[in-house]
């Protein structure tokens, strides 16, 4: 049977992709941030997951306001990146696992989560930046991928409780897959940041650190946070924390924190990186 080995978190801001493209990893501004990734790469090299389920939010590359799915799951053999409007170089395609995607969709809909299935979905920086950070060389052990996109663009966004429950259902669906494969689940985005309005530049270190603590020890406690409270504390785009909650739900009730890094500010953002290992 498929086994979830653990979850990883990371911010996915486009500035990180730019820093990678310009080899700025050792630049004083970036050094502390990039220092958070070799332990993750080492962990991945040790466990060699076959599949990565990558939970992110589309930022207006694939989805527009004409149709905005709350939860969408990729069900393609291959996923393409594309120009997001800035004319940056695009990434080579990522190999999917369509059979597992459809199994997850079948099981989750049976479990009463109404999923938008996507046989074509362009993946933006929310997806590609984490892949670049965790698998910089795209070597022979590069996992197959399943993108999962949550709506953080337009309110109403899903509640934090719903996101944790989504993750639980996702986890059950993955672990009911009969193949003996190892799966890692990525929760990307966040942490606190606000790009728009007079409050642009709002970041909240205390709140971020509280979230990084509670997501390990007591994720249920975080479901008490309302969406408006999340935005008040973490900023408009701090709502991306819901993807971390989706990841957390897919893990075992108890997890072991293997690694944590936090850099603030990275661009306009509090950037958090974690490895959470499943405990049997």
């Amino acid at each position, binding site marked *: 049977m498929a086994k979830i080995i653990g979850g990883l978190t990371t911010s996915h801001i486009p500035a990180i992709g730019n820093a990678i493209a310009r080899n700025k990893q050792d630049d004083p501004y970036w050094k502390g941030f990039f220092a958070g990734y070799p332990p993750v790469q080492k962990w991945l090299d040790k466990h060699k997951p076959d599949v990565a389920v990558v939970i992110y939010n589309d930022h207006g590359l694939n989805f527009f306001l004409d149709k905005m799915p709350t939860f969408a799951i990729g069900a393609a053999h291959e996923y393409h990146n594309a120009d997001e*409007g800035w004319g940056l170089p695009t990434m080579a395609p990522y190999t999917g696992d369509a059979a597992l995607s459809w199994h997850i969709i079948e099981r989750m809909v049976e479990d009463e989560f109404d999923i938008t299935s996507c046989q074509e979905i362009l993946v933006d920086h929310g997806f590609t930046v984490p892949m670049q950070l965790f698998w910089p060389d795209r070597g022979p052990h590069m996992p197959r991928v399943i993108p999962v996109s949550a709506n953080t*663009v337009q309110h109403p966004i899903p509640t934090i409780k719903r996101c944790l429950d989504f993750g639980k259902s996702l986890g059950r669906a993955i672990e009911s897959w009969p193949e003996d494969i190892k799966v890692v689940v990525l929760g990307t985005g966040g942490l606190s940041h606000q790009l728009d*309005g007079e409050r642009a530049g709002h970041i909240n270190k205390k709140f971020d650190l509280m979230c990084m603590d509670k997501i390990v020890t007591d994720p249920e406690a975080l479901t008490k946070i309302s969406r408006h409270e999340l935005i008040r504390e973490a900023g408009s*785009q701090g709502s991306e924390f819901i993807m971390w909650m989706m990841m957390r739900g897919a893990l075992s009730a108890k997890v072991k924190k293997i690694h944590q890094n936090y850099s603030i500010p990275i*661009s306009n953002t509090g950037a958090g990186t974690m490895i959470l290992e499943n405990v049997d």
Partner: protein
Amino acid sequence: MEDNQNRLDHHADIEGTTLFDGKMAMKGYALNKMCFSFNGGAAREEYRADPEAYFNKFNLNDEQKAACRNKNVLEMIAAGGNVYYLAKFAGIYGLNMQDIGAQQTGLTLEEFRAKLQRAGE
């Protein structure tokens, strides 16, 4: 009618923050649709060649056109713009998220960066 308008308002009172809800999504639909089109390089070229014609192509209203002409992000948000789509508009003018952060807060880029740095301490 008044009641219906109120029912549409899922506003949250968060200082300096406009919640992009259904009401704003309807208000800003044309503006955001134009910005969404800028994912394509050909669309960006078409816009650069004649911004006014491009505004009309997407049926922007006067408020939206004026905000775009002024390249004023707060005005674009007031006109229904969503920052994820506006980022593509900003890109045409070579403005990144820190540039627009500075613009919206009335700070210089250096002052805005210093503000972020302080918040992280």
